[in-house]
């Protein structure tokens, strides 16, 4: 609890560092913040072309929203994913790049990775706003689900922040971590139903049946991936416009809190020695 107080006391610093990240990122570019939209848009075009048009992946229409647009269906899961991936790839090196600052000034170190989470969240909010507008134009009724959407975004941010704290510390000990994180994220993207619907996995799983004489199915193993549940809820809220199952919420909440608690504990144990370790 006292640690939480310390972090709260540093909230102004956190806000200032976040502003520094945001302003520094696009300074001296002509399009500024608009650049942050380019990345998801290009990904959307590629995936829609390859998976929606060439491979003909056909997700079920939104129920009850009735939406049937591959690009929108994709973005509902892709934007949360890109936020998650950006947080991890950018925080993993945050302590190492600020080594100079850590060795010269005392402050609550945790604000360094958290400020990256903050600046990524800012970009994400911007993207999600555009998506909400696009969904509304497409005929979805997203406004009633807005409070739940904000809650789910918070949960994903907590989950990402916890992992980011662990990765940042690991990278201080082993500089390999940053490359491993990049690789794992690529793998993780394909293990999560973002560019294909979850129904394809359950269909395969039903055909194969229980594996190796146990009662465990492929779908069971597949759903160990927390991102399956996070992404599912985002699609429920945004694309289908219906309430997600309570069990799914509980799974996401459990993952989010487990991640942030473990992350904060690991960070705290190593924080004191950062100046020497770097």
């Amino acid at each position, binding site marked *: 609890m006292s640690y939480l107080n310390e972090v709260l006391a540093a909230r102004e610093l956190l806000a*200032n560092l976040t502003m*520094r990240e945001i302003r520094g990122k696009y300074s001296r570019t002509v399009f500024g913040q608009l650049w942050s939209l380019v990345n998801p848009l290009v990904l959307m075009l590629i995936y829609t072309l390859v998976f929606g048009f060439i491979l003909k992946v056909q997700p079920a229409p939104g129920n009850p929203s009735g939406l049937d647009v591959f690009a929108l269906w994709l973005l509902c899961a892709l934007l949360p994913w890109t936020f998650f991936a950006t947080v991890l790839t950018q925080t993993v090196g945050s302590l190492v790049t600020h080594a100079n*600052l850590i060795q010269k000034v005392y402050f609550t170190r945790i604000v360094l990775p958290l400020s990256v989470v903050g600046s990524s969240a800012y970009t994400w909010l911007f993207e999600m706003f555009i998506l909400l507008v696009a969904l509304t134009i497409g005929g979805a009724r997203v406004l009633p689900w807005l409070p739940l959407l904000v809650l789910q975004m918070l949960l994903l941010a907590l989950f990402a922040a916890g992992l980011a704290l662990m990765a940042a510390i690991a990278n201080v*000990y082993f500089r*390999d971590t940053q490359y491993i994180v990049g690789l794992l994220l690529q793998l993780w993207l394909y293990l999560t139903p973002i560019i294909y619907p979850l129904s394809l996995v359950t269909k395969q799983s039903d055909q194969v049946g229980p594996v190796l004489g146990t009662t465990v199915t492929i779908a069971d193993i597949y759903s160990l991936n927390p991102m399956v549940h996070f992404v599912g809820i985002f699609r429920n809220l945004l694309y289908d416009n219906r309430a997600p199952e309570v069990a799914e919420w509980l799974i996401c909440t459990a993952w989010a809190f487990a991640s942030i608690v473990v992350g904060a504990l690991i960070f705290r144990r190593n924080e004191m020695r950062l*100046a020497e370790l770097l």
Partner: protein
Amino acid sequence: MSEPAVRVEHVSKSFRLYHERNQTLKSAVMRRRVSVHDDFWALKDVSFEVPAGSTFGIIGSNGSGKSTLLKCLAKIYVPTSGAITYNGRLAAMLEVGSGFHPELSGRENVFLNGSILGMSRKEIVSKFDEIVEFSGVSEFIDQPVKNYSSGMYVRLGFSIAITVEPDILVVDEVLSVGDAEFQAKCFAKFREFRQSGRTVIMVSHSLDSITQMCQKAVWINRGTVMAVGDAAMTVKSYRDSLSGSL
């Protein structure tokens, strides 16, 4: 006698001297270990008190442990054993202008750096003019700091740190900052500090400025305290040891 501003009690600090350090997973796995190291004691059982409202100097030869001691005082290192207790708010300035973002303007950097040093937004707003005035870069305050000359950079950094108005200020070799005019301003500021009952702890290689500015000093050699007390006396015994060894 009043409460000391800082009390250093039996502080020791060891570092690992790595003969082999495997910072990549491959080498850690291949060599089956993360590191091979010896402990090196940079500070051994250091104890002293810094009286409140004084300017306190730390002297010693290169590699004597001054900087380690200063970093322990600035809370950047945590002592391996022993404790340091503070009586008041601490600000440390081991390198001026660290934490400046080159692309941001001087104004934005004042707010950023001020909050890193522990000032609230309100405090910075109220002292903003004073900071800019002291640094003498007011004409360029809205320019990105990457266009600053090194002197302007350092002066702005120093002005922020000194305006934090801590009860205890820890500084490293700041007397080499800026031109003679700016140095004179700094001296005056330190005097003002002392008169308002604040404590300054400084490291310097310039023994003359230590005798000039400090009332008390500690002499560190090879991680142990050789002498502590009146600045003039401490500097004298340090000088004697130097001339004796030559």
